[in-house]
């Protein structure tokens, strides 16, 4: 198979775009898709300070690599969840990536700050591990961004993540969550950083291919807590559809975004809705819809059991 742009040997076929790219043209393609996402969704500019949440995996390291190479002012945040060897290995990957590139790395240690690793905390409060993990990560992503004056918080969510999440929300008609499924969420109130997902135009396979051809040393092992997770089933199901009918994932998610934009003209903006319901948490001052935020309630519960 030859590259459709330059006729060198292709390293990746992309059926959804009816094309194939060599190593160099694949890198160009990934750069273009990320720049297009940033511009079309008005995510940020080169004057913004961007904090990238990194896990050591292919998506977040690719995002950090591309933004850094494009000249954006980037720093990284790693939340160490204390999941034994998996966390040790992933933290090491992040450090090995950021150090030689001179990228500032912030680390939040869950074991030290919350008093226990994520598995122990989940057992204490009797919540599913992934749910506890999500609450802690979201909380510290935002808090670190705000406390260190980053205007933007960027995460490595890709097309597959967003399509799978949309499928899950639609299957269970969790319509409250649909409005927040865009790739760019505003800094509606004081205490909130703007949240963006610049990889939403790229599939996991395209991102993994970029990481491999650009020799990014990412953690291939999957989080041990994700075994059997519903998201993996949704992703596999979507990939089966994609295989039979290329373009299915982008039609599903991008189509949803297009409808969302059309309908937004008749609704209050997300920022207006947020401003109407958010107030500072009485314990930590982070924005919340109730008196005490979900993170503080969770930690209070952990301390009483």
């Amino acid at each position, binding site marked *: 198979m030859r590259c459709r742009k330059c006729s060198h040997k292709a390293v990746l076929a992309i059926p959804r775009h009816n094309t194939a790219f060599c190593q160099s043209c694949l890198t160009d393609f990934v750069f273009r898709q990320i720049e297009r996402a940033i511009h079309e969704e008005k995510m940020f500019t080169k004057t913004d300070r961007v904090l990238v949440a990194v896990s050591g995996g292919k998506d977040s390291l690719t995002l950090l690599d591309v933004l850094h190479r494009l000249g954006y002012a980037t720093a990284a945040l790693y939340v160490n969840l204390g999941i034994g060897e998996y966390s040790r290995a992933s933290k090491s990957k992040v450090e090995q990536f950021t150090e030689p590139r001179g990228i500032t790395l912030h680390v939040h240690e869950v074991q030290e700050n919350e008093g226990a690793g994520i598995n122990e905390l989940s057992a204490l409060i009797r919540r599913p591990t992934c749910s506890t993990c999500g609450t802690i990560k979201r909380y510290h992503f935002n808090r670190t961004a705000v406390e260190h004056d980053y205007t933007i918080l960027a995460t490595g969510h890709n097309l597959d993540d967003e399509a799978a999440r949309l499928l899950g929300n639609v299957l269970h008609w969790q319509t409250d969550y649909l409005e927040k499924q865009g790739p760019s969420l505003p800094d509606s109130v004081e205490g909130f950083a703007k949240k963006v997902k610049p990889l939403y135009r790229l599939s996991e396979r395209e991102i993994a291919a970029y990481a491999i051809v650009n020799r990014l040393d990412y953690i291939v*092992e999957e989080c041990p807590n994700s075994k059997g*997770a519903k998201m993996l089933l949704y992703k596999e199901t979507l990939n089966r559809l994609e295989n039979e009918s290329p373009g299915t994932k982008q039609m599903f998610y991008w189509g949803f975004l297009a409808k969302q934009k059309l309908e937004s003209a008749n609704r209050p903006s997300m920022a207006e809705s947020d401003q109407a319901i958010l107030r500072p948490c009485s314990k930590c001052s982070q924005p919340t819809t109730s008196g005490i935020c*979900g993170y503080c309630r969770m930690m209070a519960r952990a301390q009483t059991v």
Partner: protein
Amino acid sequence: MKILFNHPVREVNIPGPKRVQDLLKELDLIPESVLVIRGDDLVTEDDTLRDEDCVEIRPVISGGAGEKASSRPEPGWAGEMGIIHALS
């Protein structure tokens, strides 16, 4: 040829030569979910793998429970931060 897998890590031998797309079909793998690496290089579905090749089949799917897409809604625990700024 020697085939290396992740999740769990294991190794199998399959006689070559064989085209990548035929190998994936034989192993019942979805091409959209994996990449095939020979040495340090990616190979495409129409490439032919030789009997003496050593290749890694690397999964590209990752992710845990994700952001508020669970099969069980969590009354009282939906978490304002989750609803307002779902990130994970």
